[in-house]
């Protein structure tokens, strides 16, 4: 049991580090970042203190969790994190485009006015 806790703890710490690095490099939008920080801390807490999870699994009648499932879960988590990063990048570009359009529209209307008057 204690070994499982250590393994899970290390995995979730790795996960938290990936999240933190992504945020620090501005790869994650704040909206997503908050969610991921919360998620990372929850996973870490549950890996150190798994009692609530164990109680839940007993209540559901599950008492054997194949290691494969654990790995696929971590794998999926990383994929979703990657999507979150990609989405942040797209939103950023989208924002820049919208700002440019706004500024260009202003310049265009100024030029048109000048042409009319000149």
């Amino acid at each position, binding site marked *: 049991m204690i070994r499982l806790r250590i393994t899970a703890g290390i995995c979730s710490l790795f996960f938290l580090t990936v999240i*933190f690095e992504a*945020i*620090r*490099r*501005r790869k994650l*939008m*704040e*909206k997503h*970042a*908050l969610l991921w*920080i919360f998620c990372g801390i929850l996973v870490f807490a549950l890996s150190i203190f798994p009692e609530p999870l164990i109680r839940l699994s007993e209540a559901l009648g599950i008492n054997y969790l194949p290691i494969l499932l654990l790995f696929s879960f971590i794998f999926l988590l990383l994929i979703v994190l990657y999507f979150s990063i990609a989405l942040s990048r797209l939103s950023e570009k989208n*924002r820049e485009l*919208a*700002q440019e*359009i*706004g*500024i260009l*529209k*202003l310049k265009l*209307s*100024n030029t048109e006015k000048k042409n009319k008057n000149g």
Partner: protein
Amino acid sequence: MQNKKVLIILPAYNEEENIGKVIEDVRKNIPTADILVVNDGSLDSTAKAAKDKEAAVIDLPFNLGIGAAMQAGYKFAYREEYDIAVQCDGDGQHPAYQIKNLIAPLLSNKADIVVGSRFLGSFGYRSSVWRQIGIVLFSKLLSFITKERLTDTTCGFRGLNKKAIKSFSIYYPCDYPEVEALVLAHKEGLRITEVPIRIYRRKQGNSSIGFFDSFYYTIKVLIAVVIDLFEETPLRKEKPV
């Protein structure tokens, strides 16, 4: 305002009722300044109301949120080489006669960013208890981070010089940007000063921060500020704006 190019930026979302009056108020008080309205994808005819008053309008194609709208204004100010930019709410909360006071520290080069404070001086500003707690919390936190005495870090009535305009045009936080912008500015080495101001109660429309959002706002900004402290600094990755 000895031949300094001054731009007053008014971000506006669904403010067709107020924006005309705000523009008139600014023009009356600082006739030499240019006025830029950033219409953040309003559903009403805010853009038309502003154009009717002969203000320049950045008409964003859809709603981007206050942070991105302000940044569009700063990008414009930076490219058009304004010496000073003033950010002022488009709903008439910030009476324009105070702009001269606000930008005085910029003109005398005592600061790079001037923030209006509702609490300095004897004007006495009251708000709901929860909002007040949030405001005090952030002021204490920001005073600690910047080692300056700051009393009102959530106020959106601000003046910036060229250096600050450049910084904000490169990076400006997205939602609820006021507190975070100050942390980033401090990391950038910009000098921040406060000036006492007075605000008016809103007449029409809804403020962007409702009562029930106060709690979420506080937690969100708190975490964002902590993240900002670890982030790479904005002027660091110079890219052409």
